[in-house]
């Protein structure tokens, strides 16, 4: 069985749709994370496929779900962090042969099909619904939430996995070549790194509002501190290093005003969740975390890169969709947990949400106040990608764990965890989930 790509009709992209029709009727009940690694070491048991099987099994175990009762799978077949399998290099036979292979020998190594997953998980005997959600976990979660609500699946696994190989980020492929195709040359000829668009927006933000890059230091410090309390994260597992304001301000530039610590570290990992109906969730091992809404942005910039005006208009629009479908306001948010990989756009999400009344141009001042997990205004208790590594997953897991009161050392203590929003990635084009400790 190979999954179709998702139809756009699954997403709530417009304002004025009212309350989500399945508000509080879909719940997350299981979380599974694989171990992390900086890069693949070439062994079968650490390839991205193996990490994915591990995460899926952990999620079902966490939920107390019998694999035979799982009937849905939503996943992203693309697993690259920016590293690609070298053209012409054969897939290692010992890895291919260690699994139930598909027609593509790089399946499970440099990509991931639903056929590969189901072929290697014989315990999943009843999966009748499978769908691809490209891009990141937020998109896959939106699809799964809608599918469970619509009755297309009653117990659905949601999977996002990442591979990383040797070599520097995005430095292979056409970037190492002598020529570019005409379409990509319109932007790629100038050699801007991936963080360039965000750095541009941040530069304009600082000019417009009179802010400076060093004002990001408390946010970065807070993110890494929280990330080091996330035992599933890369930095906690492999490099328990805090970032001080001095470290941050001394870091080398990538695309000034974006420095090394404003960029997330590409890693290998997989994470999976179990979504089910609110009725079934009551009988499972963990406290259900109810999905109150999902919302998406499909805004595209007018030209090559989004302007600050385009970003601010769209984050505000996304917030209105998020709140409308969930029937909540900014005042209902227990904490703030939006995407951060790159750090320099996190404030756009926060300001768009109007978290704690913070308006456009005010987030960097807000970062100078108590944004810790122990204060009244927690920002990114997950630590995000800056605190845990590049996966676009941490804020979802953290929202669930915070609302279940099982976030361990990261558990927020200055607020009662009742309602949270997670999502991203970029300010334009993101997908967002609203989580509730109760269905209403």
């Amino acid at each position, binding site marked *: 069985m190979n999954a179709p790509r998702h139809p756009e009709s699954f997403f709530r992209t417009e304002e004025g749709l009212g309350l989500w029709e399945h508000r509080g009727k879909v719940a997350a009940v299981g979380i599974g994370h694989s171990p992390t690694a900086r890069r693949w070491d070439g062994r079968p048991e650490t390839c991205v496929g193996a990490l994915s099987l591990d995460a899926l099994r952990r999620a079902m175990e966490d939920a107390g779900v019998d694999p035979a009762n799982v009937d849905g799978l939503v996943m992203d077949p693309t697993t690259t962090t920016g590293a690609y399998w070298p053209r012409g290099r054969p897939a290692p036979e010992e890895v291919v042969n260690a699994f139930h292979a598909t027609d593509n020998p790089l399946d499970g190594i440099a990509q991931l099909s639903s056929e590969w997953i189901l072929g290697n998980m014989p315990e999943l005997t009843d999966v009748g619904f499978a769908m691809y959600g490209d891009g990141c976990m937020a998109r896959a979660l939106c699809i799964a939430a809608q599918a469970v609500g619509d009755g297309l699946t009653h117990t659905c696994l949601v999977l996002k996995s990442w591979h990383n190989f040797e070599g*520097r*980020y*995005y*430095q292979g492929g056409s*970037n*190492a*070549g*002598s*020529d*570019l*195709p*005409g*379409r990509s*040359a*319109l*932007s*790629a*000829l*100038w*050699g*801007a*790194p*991936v963080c*360039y668009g965000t*750095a*541009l927006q941040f*530069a*304009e933000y600082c*000019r417009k509002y009179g802010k400076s890059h060093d004002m990001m230091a408390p946010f970065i410090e807070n993110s890494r501190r929280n990330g080091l309390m996330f035992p599933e994260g890369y930095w906690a597992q492999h490099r328990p290093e805090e970032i001080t304001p001095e470290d941050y301000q001394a870091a*080398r*530039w*990538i*695309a*000034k*005003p*974006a420095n090394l610590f404003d960029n997330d570290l590409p890693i290998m990992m997989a994470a999976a969740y179990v979504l089910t109906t609110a009725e079934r969730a009551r009988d499972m091992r963990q406290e259900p975390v109810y999905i109150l809404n999902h919302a998406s942005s499909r805004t*595209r910039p*007018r*030209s*090559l*890169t989004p*302007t600050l005006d385009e970003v601010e208009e769209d984050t505000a629009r996304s917030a209105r969709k998020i709140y409308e479908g969930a029937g909540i306001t900014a005042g209902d948010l227990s904490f703030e947990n939006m995407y951060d990989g790159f750090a320099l756009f996190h404030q756009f999400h926060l300001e768009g949400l109007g978290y704690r009344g913070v308006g456009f141009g005010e987030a960097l001042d807000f970062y100078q106040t108590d944004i810790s997990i122990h204060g009244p205004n927690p920002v990114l208790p997950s630590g995000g990608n800056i605190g845990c590594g590049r996966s676009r997953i941490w804020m979802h897991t953290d929202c669930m764990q915070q609302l279940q009161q099982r976030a361990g050392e990261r558990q927020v203590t200055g607020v009662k965890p009742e309602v949270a929003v997670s999502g991203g990635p970029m300010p334009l084009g993101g997908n967002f989930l609203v989580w509730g400790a109760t269905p209403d």
Partner: protein
Amino acid sequence: MKQGVVPDDLTRPFWEAANERRLVIQCCAACDRLQHPPGRRCHQCGSDEHIGWREVSGRATIYNYCVVHDTPVRVLQQDQPFNVAVVMLDEDPGIQMYSHLPGTPVDEVPVGAPVEVVFEATANGQFVPEWQVVEGAP
């Protein structure tokens, strides 16, 4: 020197004009609206029936910039650090183009200053639009 460019069907008019030292931008005649990067259809009305190309003046304004210290493009790494600016066309400030701003010192970019187009050869001889600050501009 920048990487070479191999024009494709969609962008060939843009690159051919650059070789003639002209700047053309895709335009929907029905909407009277420029769009860049080009597409198969008008980004506004969705039609592919009125898509064409319009020559523009080659005057623009610097909107924003960053200084690249760590480029993924191999042939540019020896030139680091360098400016990468966004300029916006005088005909339509919604239309952006990238520029290394030849002649402008690194990190001394006059945001808001007028610029004019020049054409620069790439590694395979294809010319590409670049932008220079207009002399005498503040």
